[in-house]
């Protein structure tokens, strides 16, 4: 019998990503008698986030709360997960493609000696062995991966499992000891610099406005990209080039190695559209491109294009849309 555990963490991308993970889990266990469970790993959760986790249709919500997780290291977290998985007999693990999922889950897989499938965007569990689809080569191809092992793990791309959410049931909660006091890790958490933003989270925003190097400096980026994003209650994003040249913060990078987003509206301003950038945004519902070069590759994926200098076009858009 299969037992599926979805791992969520306190720093994770919030309810949107958790609901997507639950949708994936429900798709995967469609032919099983049993459903899936959720395990929260992090510092003490708020009553509100517990209520959210209990509304996702899980058979059970495990809570592994420990203040030490606020300074989480992959060594300790993977060891705690390994112990839990062995004690409770889970054979399939799933997590969001967050820094947590990408950092901790492969390590936990090695401790359990099980394979892992990253960035799952579709699952077909109707056959004898589940078939997963995942993008490869910066999204230029989709690989079809058949898993015959009964024990494995996946990270799931939240944007691919975003559906109308129907809160279902009220899952029972069980608290689990983290066992962290008995774990000696060779890694020490030293510090973090988090960029505070009043704007919506980039990974889950309904609207994303992104800019490239033609923005020139961080003040212009904030005034134009930030200004247009605020008109639309959206998040801001950036290209690798814009991050490398100090125009935007690193956590705003959209692309193959940054964040992968799929908002209802993506506005790309002064972005030529490298393969790596397209990999991070081409599944957006509506794509708008503003660029001075009519031959820029970004126009090949855009629904609406405007050949214009962003320094004049964006102020115009801001005044038209405010």
């Amino acid at each position, binding site marked *: 019998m299969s037992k599926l555990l979805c791992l969520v963490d306190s720093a994770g991308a919030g309810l949107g990503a958790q609901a997507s993970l639950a949708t994936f889990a429900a798709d995967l266990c469609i032919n099983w008698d049993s459903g899936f469970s959720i395990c929260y790993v992090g510092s003490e959760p708020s009553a509100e986030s517990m209520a959210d986790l209990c509304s996702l249709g899980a058979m059970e919500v495990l809570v592994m709360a420990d203040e030490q997780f606020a300074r989480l*290291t*992959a*060594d300790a977290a*993977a060891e705690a997960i390994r112990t839990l998985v062995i004690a409770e007999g889970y054979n399939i693990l799933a997590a969001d493609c967050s*820094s947590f999922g990408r*950092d901790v*889950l*492969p*390590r936990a*897989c*090695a401790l359990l000696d099980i*394979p*892992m499938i*990253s*960035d799952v965007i579709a699952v077909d569990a109707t056959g004898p062995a589940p078939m997963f689809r995942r*993008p490869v*080569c*910066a*999204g230029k*191809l*989709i*690989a*079809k*991966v*058949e*898993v*015959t092992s*009964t024990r494995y793990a996946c990270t799931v791309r939240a944007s691919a499992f975003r559906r109308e959410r129907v809160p279902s049931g009220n899952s029972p909660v069980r608290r689990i000891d983290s066992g962290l006091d008995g774990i000696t890790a*060779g*890694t*020490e*958490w*030293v*510090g*973090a610099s*988090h960029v505070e933003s009043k704007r919506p989270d980039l990974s889950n925003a309904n*609207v994303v406005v992104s800019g490239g190097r033609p923005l020139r400096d961080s003040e212009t980026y904030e005034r134009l990209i930030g200004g247009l994003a605020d008109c639309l209650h959206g998040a801001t994003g950036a290209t690798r080039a814009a*991050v*490398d040249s100090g125009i935007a913060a*690193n*956590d705003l990078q959209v692309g*193959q*190695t940054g964040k992968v987003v799929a908002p*209802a509206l993506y*506005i790309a301003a002064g972005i030529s559209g490298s393969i*790596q950038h397209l990999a991070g945004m*081409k599944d957006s*519902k509506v*794509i*708008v491109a503003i660029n001075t070069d*009519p031959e820029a590759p970004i*126009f090949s994926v*855009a*629904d*609406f294009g405007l050949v214009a200098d962003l320094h004049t*076009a964006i102020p*115009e*858009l801001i005044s*038209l*849309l405010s």
Partner: protein
Amino acid sequence: MRILVPIKRTPDPNSLVRLTADAQIDLDGCKWIVNPFDEIALEEAVRQREAGLDAEIVVVSIGPEEAADQLRACLAMGADRAIHVCCNRSLEPIQTAHLLAAVVATEQPDLILMGKQAIDGDQNQTGQMLAGRLGWPQATFASTITISDNHTTAVVEREVDTGRETLQVRLPAVVTADLRLAEPRYVALPAIIRARNKPMANVAVDDLGGVPDCGVRTVGYELPPSRAPGVMLPDAASLAAKIREAVQ
């Protein structure tokens, strides 16, 4: 100290990607490169040494006969010697980690520095799995590395979803490179010629204990759905109208 840099032979990201009739990737005429993230890792190792770190840099690749070309390129960049694990099949990250752990058992490096992901498989698993398998500390997605004078610890700044985070790892450890760790150098011809005389050892997969089956198989590939052609608009006013429609 010894730094081990695992590298992968990958298709050039600017190569056209086509499918064969039986849904496999058509690699005919494809240009091959050192996985860019691994190249960044190697560049960082070479820079650490140039900045005064007393280190031997060993590159290892698991791949077909032709992967020797990429190992030579790494020797030209500054690696001291290369290990080529000849393997003609495609491996899952858990299998790669298994083989690399066997190389580590022989080489006994103090630091493993490698790319955070390969740009073909895009899995982002091997470094973490290798660290887990060895029971070593890990610091993924590194943007800076500072190795202590006595070579017992490293402080690593890493790129995470919310910004940056700093970890101190005890050595030996696995550190995976993110984009901003280092910019790979241009390698001039004399270095390429000199690299021909650097040692390259060949190791068979069987010498490393073979590849265990893992129950994961890529059965084929498909092209992603293409987007309908877009519309070019004449001015900001007509674009504003479309934006209003999209957010309603």
